[in-house]
């Protein structure tokens, strides 16, 4: 009971608070919050929205997992953005150039993406481990540099082709594509959605059931205790960031092998930052992240529906930003409340027992 309260109450509070905040903003600007809410809910049943939410949710899920791996060790990989974009770009180039039998082709594309993501994160990992450069700053700089590198890679005199008025890489042939599940007029679920789910299971297993996962969490909880216990801090930093980068490399793959089949100048951006927000919402827990990813995708898709009923779509961004901030504040408030309740309970027990024992109640 208590566990449910500490785990589920804060996000619920945060969502209600963010919704109230948005309702106030809408009322001030002269729009009806109820119309907005109605439009947001009814859109789910219309057209391909439900499938779109699942597909986007899977992408956000992978991005958030990548962030969460770093978070476990208190490493902030802000560079998911650069890692996934560079990985998708290189994977598209490799996938478009190779001729391979069907399944192997797709696997090669996925592996290339993971390797490139890990490599790009590896720069930050080495800088952190051997030169003490904060990974926050180095990954942000690497994001910028990745943008330049991508622009260079898809130039027409390197690997780019002119398609209409957009520059793109050579299209990936049929053999490299990942078939999805078609639901007729409701859209097609990416095959990669299931890979994302598998990644979630793998993440859960790694954290809870392996020695590496234990060392990762121990290093995050208390670096000094972990070092005393024989964990090599430098090695952990490198492995954690490489792993985070490898997962980040997969973020762009669902759309690459399931819908676009090429990397273009207008390929999507911003998933890296969404991943950070979703990982925070889900508290780095594999199931929590899944719920957070779906919520985020739902809010994203709401923008269009809100536009149709004349409500400024930007309210969704405010909702997303305030939900993240309020969820972290809500966890802190509930934690403090629980701590105070615990202290009251213990002190009441101590008063009841005639000979008080020495007891440490501070967390």
């Amino acid at each position, binding site marked *: 009971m208590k566990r449910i309260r500490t785990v589920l109450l804060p996000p619920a509070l945060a969502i209600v608070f963010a919704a109230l905040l948005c309702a106030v*903003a809408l009322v001030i600007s002269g729009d009806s919050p109820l119309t907005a809410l109605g439009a947001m809910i009814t859109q789910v049943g219309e057209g391909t929205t439900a499938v779109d939410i699942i597909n986007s949710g899977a992408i956000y899920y992978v991005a958030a997992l990548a962030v969460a791996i770093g978070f476990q060790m208190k490493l902030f990989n802000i560079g998911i953005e650069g890692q996934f974009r560079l990985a998708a770009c290189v994977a598209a180039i490799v996938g478009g150039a190779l001729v391979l039998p069907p399944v192997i082709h797709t696997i090669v594309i996925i592996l290339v993406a993971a390797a490139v993501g890990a490599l790009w994160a590896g720069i930050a990992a080495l800088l952190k481990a051997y030169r003490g450069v904060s990974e926050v700053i180095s990954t942000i700089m690497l994001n910028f540099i990745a943008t330049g590198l991508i622009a260079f890679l898809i130039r027409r005199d390197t690997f780019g082709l002119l398609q209409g008025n957009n520059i793109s890489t050579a299209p990936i042939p049929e053999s490299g594509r990942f078939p999805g599940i078609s639901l007729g007029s409701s859209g097609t679920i990416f095959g990669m959605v299931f890979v994302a789910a598998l990644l979630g299971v793998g993440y859960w297993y790694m954290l809870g059931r392996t020695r590496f996962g234990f060392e990762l969490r121990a290093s995050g909880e208390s670096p000094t205790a972990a070092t005393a216990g024989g964990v090599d801090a430098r090695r952990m930093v490198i492995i954690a960031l490489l792993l985070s980068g490898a997962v980040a490399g997969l973020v762009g793959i669902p759309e690459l092998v399931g819908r676009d089949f090429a990397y273009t100048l207008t390929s999507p951006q911003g998933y890296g930052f969404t991943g950070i927000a979703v990982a925070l919402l889900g508290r780095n827990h594999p199931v929590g992240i899944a719920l957070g990813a779906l919520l985020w995708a739902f809010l994203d898709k709401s923008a269009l529906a809100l536009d149709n009923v004349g409500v400024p779509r930007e309210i969704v961004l405010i909702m997303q930003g305030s939900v993240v901030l309020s969820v972290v504040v809500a966890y802190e408030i509930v934690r403090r409340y629980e701590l105070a309740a615990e202290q009251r309970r213990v002190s009441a027990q101590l008063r009841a027992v005639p000979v008080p024992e020495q007891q440490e109640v501070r967390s």
Partner: protein
Amino acid sequence: MTATAARPTVSPPASRRRVPGWARTMLVVAAGLVILSVTATLTGQLQLTSRGTTQAAVLLLLPILFAGLGGLWAERAGVVNIGLEGMMILGTWGAAWAGYQWGPWAAVLGGLIFGALGGLLHAVATVTFTVNHIVSGVAITLLGLGVTKYLSTLLFLPVSQNPRQSPRVEGFDTYSVQPLSDGLAAVEAEQRVLLSDVAGILGGLVSGLTPLVVLGFALVPISYLVLWRTRFGLRLRSTGENPVAAESLGVAVVTYKYIAVVASGALAGLGGAALTLNPGQLGYLEGQTGGRGYIGLAAMIFGNWRPGGLLAGSALFGYVDGVQLRAGGEAVHALLYGATILAAALAVLWVARRQWRPAVVALVAGAVVYGLYQTIDTVPREFAAYAPQLVTLLVLAVASQRLRPPAAVGEEYRKGEGD
């Protein structure tokens, strides 16, 4: 962000003929000028030291300088402020909104207030609710983006017919320090080695000024004096070094942290105003900040959490950016030549000090850069645009181990936890 060097290093007992700090700075600046001048002369890239490049560099470094100062104030009080980017976005919007109605000074104030509001939010989250600083910063950046987009649709769309843009904001008039500016221009036109180069750079610094440029440069010594030479500053910094000890001495830690973080937001907001009021800028434009808040933070780390250092960091950034914007890939290519000279000079310096390992590293790095210089004719446009970020990364890789962040930066502090 982890406190790597918790213990201050003990300075060696009175090393022989120690050069005072200001003299060292002058020496470094002079050496930089000489290297640039030699590079400009030998490669024929006169744009490297021209007045126009320096003017562009000053305008480009200004937002980064403000953001860096913002980072300095927050981190000196122990709060990591990665939300600078979000506060800067808020600043650009606030400046444009106030600016198009009431003129440039209102724009400065508007940017300041909007940025400070972002800072206040960060303070509430990190100081009162002890939320992780990075988490709160990322959330504030998201929120800043959302709020400004929403407000732009609401308030700018009816006037400018474009939800991504504000109506035209009147900027400051530019002025030059006369007769110094004209005199330097004359010297620059004579094309004499070194003399004309120095005149070009100085000329860029005393012409095309706006009140905001002056304010930005003035805030560097002001921040130093306030933070290092007043009682208030000592207390503020003590909350970033050891909040528990500060509290035991009667310092109102929470109040100081609030002041610092709100000031930090205000400074970031000023950076936003500087972007909006930049000559040649129409006003607010969505995505205008382009990550300059983060770059400001990097400039501050580059500058070892000191005002002078962060000025150098943002100058480096603004300069490389100015060079690539004004003269393109070939001028950036010429900078590779300058980097080779720098590496060789450093190698000589280290050999003279009998430090063999860094000397070898510098020599190898110089050889690699020179090889790169010889093999390519120009730096591709796509890389030239991100040269500042690359330089930052390289400098951090070389210098980060000598940096000393405030001891308690990024740590959660709860009132009364030392009892």
